[in-house]
C-alpha cells in the first residue's frame, strides 16, 4: 500500500499521559492511601457524598489518584460505581436509630436529649498554623466515653416538639417504592424521591450556591430555622430474601438536617382565615457535610413549594445543573476538537455576508 494513516493522535496521547504521570510524582514525596484516610476526613466526606458511593478506602484512593482534585476524585468513584451491579436495596432505615455524635438545634435552646456539640470546625479560628503536629493527640477512642443522660442511639427529634405543639402537621407516611435515579432517568415533573437523591449527590458548591440564592432573594427569600442538624452513625440492614429477617451490614456516617420554614397552612380554617404553620425542608448526606445538608434542605423546600418564577423553584433548572460529573464534563468538552462543526459555522457566516453584502 502506498499511503498509510499517520498515527499522530495515538503517539501524542501516550506522551501526554506519560508526562502527566511523571510530573505527578516528580518531587519524590510519596503518600499512602492510609495517610489520606487518616488526615483528610472532610475531603473524603465531601467526595463520598457527591459520588454517592460510601467507601472511605476507595474515596481516599480516588483523592490520591486525582492529585486532590475534587471533581476528578468524584468522577473516578462514579465511574467505578458503573462497574458494580446493584445487588440489594437496604431496608428502610430511620434516623431516630442513629447513634448521634453531634447534634445542634438553632431553634430551641433546650431540646430533649440536649445539644451535643461533638467534633466540628465551626468554632476554630481560621488562622494558618504552621505547627501541624499530631504526635501528641489522643486516639479517637478516648472521646467516646463522655457520659450522657440519654441513649445516643434513641434521641428524640426536635420536630416532635413542634408537632406536639400543633405547629407542624406531619404528612402521612408515603410507603411507595422510591424512584431510583441511577436506574431510571428523572422524568419531569420530578418526584420527591428523585429530587432528594439528585440533591444529595449534587456538587457541594452548586447546592450551596443555589440554596443561598433561594434564601437571599430569589424564591423563599427568608431565613429558615434549623430545627436540627445531626451527625452520627446510621445502621444499615438488608433483607435479601424478603423474609422480614433483615441482616445488619454496617454503619454509615450521615448528616441530617430538618429546617423549619414558616409558611401558610394549605387549607383555610373554618372562618376562611389562613393560618401560619411550619413546613419542613429536608437534607441528608453521606458523611459529615453540614453546609451541603442545610442547603439541600432549603432546596428540597423550594422545589416542594415553588415561588413564582424563581430558578430555585424549577426542578429542571436545579436538578439538571447541580451534578458535578455532568457540569464539569460538559464544560471541559468544549476544548475537544470541533473542526467539522466550526467549518459548518464558517459556511453559514460567509453565506450571510454574501447575501447582505450584495
Amino acid at each position, binding site marked *: *500500500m*502506498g*499511503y*498509510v*494513516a*499517520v*498515527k*499522530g*493522535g*495515538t503517539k*501524542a*496521547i501516550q506522551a501526554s499521559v506519560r508526562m502527566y504521570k511523571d510530573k505527578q510524582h516528580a518531587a519524590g514525596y510519596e503518600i499512602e492511601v492510609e495517610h489520606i484516610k487518616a488526615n483528610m476526613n472532610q475531603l473524603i466526606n465531601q467526595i463520598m457524598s457527591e459520588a454517592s458511593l460510601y467507601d472511605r478506602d476507595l474515596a481516599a484512593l480516588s483523592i490520591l489518584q486525582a492529585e486532590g482534585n475534587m471533581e476528578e476524585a468524584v*468522577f473516578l468513584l*462514579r*465511574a*467505578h*460505581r*458503573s*462497574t*458494580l*451491579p*446493584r445487588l440489594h436495596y437496604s431496608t428502610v432505615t430511620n434516623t431516630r436509630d442513629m447513634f448521634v455524635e453531634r447534634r445542634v438545634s438553632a431553634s430551641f435552646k433546650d431540646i430533649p436529649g440536649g445539644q451535643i456539640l461533638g467534633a466540628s470546625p465551626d468554632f476554630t479560628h481560621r488562622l494558618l498554623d504552621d505547627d501541624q503536629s499530631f504526635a501528641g493527640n489522643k486516639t479517637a477512642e478516648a472521646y467516646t466515653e463522655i457520659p450522657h443522660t440519654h441513649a445516643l442511639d434513641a434521641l428524640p427529634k426536635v420536630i416532635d416538639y413542634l408537632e406536639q405543639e400543633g405547629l407542624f402537621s406531619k404528612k402521612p407516611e408515603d410507603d411507595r417504592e422510591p424512584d*431510583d*435515579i*441511577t*436506574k*431510571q*432517568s428523572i*422524568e*419531569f*415533573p420530578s418526584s420527591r424521591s428523585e429530587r432528594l437523591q439528585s440533591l444529595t449527590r449534587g456538587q457541594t458548591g452548586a447546592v450551596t450556591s443555589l440554596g443561598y440564592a433561594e434564601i437571599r432573594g430569589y424564591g423563599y427569600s427568608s431565613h429558615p430555622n434549623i430545627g436540627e442538624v445531626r451527625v452520627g452513625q446510621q445502621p444499615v440492614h438488608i433483607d435479601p430474601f424478603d423474609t422480614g429477617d433483615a441482616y445488619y451490614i454496617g454503619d454509615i456516617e450521615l448528616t441530617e438536617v430538618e429546617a423549619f420554614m414558616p409558611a401558610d397552612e394549605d387549607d383555610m380554617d373554618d372562618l376562611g382565615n389562613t393560618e401560619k404553620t411550619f413546613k419542613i425542608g429536608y437534607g441528608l448526606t453521606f458523611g459529615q457535610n453540614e453546609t451541603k445538608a442545610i442547603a439541600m434542605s432549603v432546596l428540597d423546600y423550594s422545589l416542594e413549594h415553588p415561588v413564582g418564577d424563581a430558578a430555585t423553584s424549577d426542578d*429542571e433548572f436545579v436538578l*439538571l445543573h447541580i451534578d458535578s*460529573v*455532568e457540569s*464539569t*464534563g*460538559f*464544560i*471541559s*468538552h468544549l476544548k*475537544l*476538537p*470541533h*473542526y*467539522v*462543526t466550526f*467549518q*459548518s*459555522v*464558517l*459556511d*453559514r457566516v460567509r*453565506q*450571510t455576508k454574501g*447575501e*447582505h453584502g450584495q
Partner: protein
Amino acid sequence: MRQNFAFLDEHSKKEIRRKTLKAISIPGYQVPFASRELPIARGWGTGGLQLTLSLIGQADILKVIDQGSDESVNAVNIRRLIQDTTGVKDTIHTDAATLIQSRHRIPEVPLKPYQILVLQVPLPEPLRPVEPSERITKQLHADKEYSGAWLRLFEQIMRYGSITDDADYPVLVDGRYVMAPSPIPRFDNPKLEDNDGLILLGAGREKKIYAVPPYTKVASLAFEDHPFEVESFDDVTCRESGLTGVYMDELIDETTGETYYMTNDTSYMIEEMNKEGSVK
C-alpha cells in the same frame, strides 16, 4: 483493578439494549435511559460509548472516529478504552468495521447492512433552542407540534436572508419526530436517509438514546422556496488527494499563508489514494 468485559456491569448493558430496541421501534424518538458514568468525562462521548459498550461482542471489529479522523485524540482515547476492556480488533477501514463510533461525522463510505453507526450526541433535543423546559418539549413531541423549530428557521431568513443553522441541523424522521442528528455537518444529513445500516445516537449527559433504523425517511427541515443547503465545497479540490465532492477541512499553508483544503474523512482519502488510477 479487574474490569468487566466492556466495562459496564451486565445489568446496565441489558437496560441500555432494551432502551435501544425501543429507540429502533420508534424512529427519531428520544428514549430516556439511566445513563452511567464512564471513565471518560460526560460530554466527551459517554452516550455513544454506552451504546458501543452495551452492543459490542468479541467478534466485532471496531472503528472509532472523531472529526472524520481515526487519529483524532478523542477517537484514540475512546478506542483505547473499548479495546482495553474488550480486546476486540480495530480497523480504520469503514467497510471492514461492524461497529463504528463517530463524533461529528458520518463516513463518506455508505454504511452496509451489517454495520451499526453510533453517533455521540451532546444536545439531543432539537427544540431546546426554542424551549428550555424538558417537560414542555416532551409534550411538544407528543403533540407533533414543531412550529417552533420551523419558526426559528423562518426568523433566520427574515433576519439574515438565509437559514443560519450550521451543524446539528434538525431533521424530520419518518414524517413523525423532529430529531437532532448530532453535530454532523449539514453535508452529512442526506446520508441519514434510506441508509442500509443502523444508526444509533446516544446522549450520555442528557440521558437519551434514539435511532434511525435502516431504510427510514429522513428530511432536513426546509421551506419550499428556501430549500435545505449543505456546506458548499463546489470549487474546492483536496490538495492531498485531488478528491472533490467530499467534506473538507480548511487549512492554512504555513509557508505561503494560503488557504487550502483537504478531505476530512482521512481513512476514505487514503483508500481512494491507494486505488488503481486514483485521481492523483
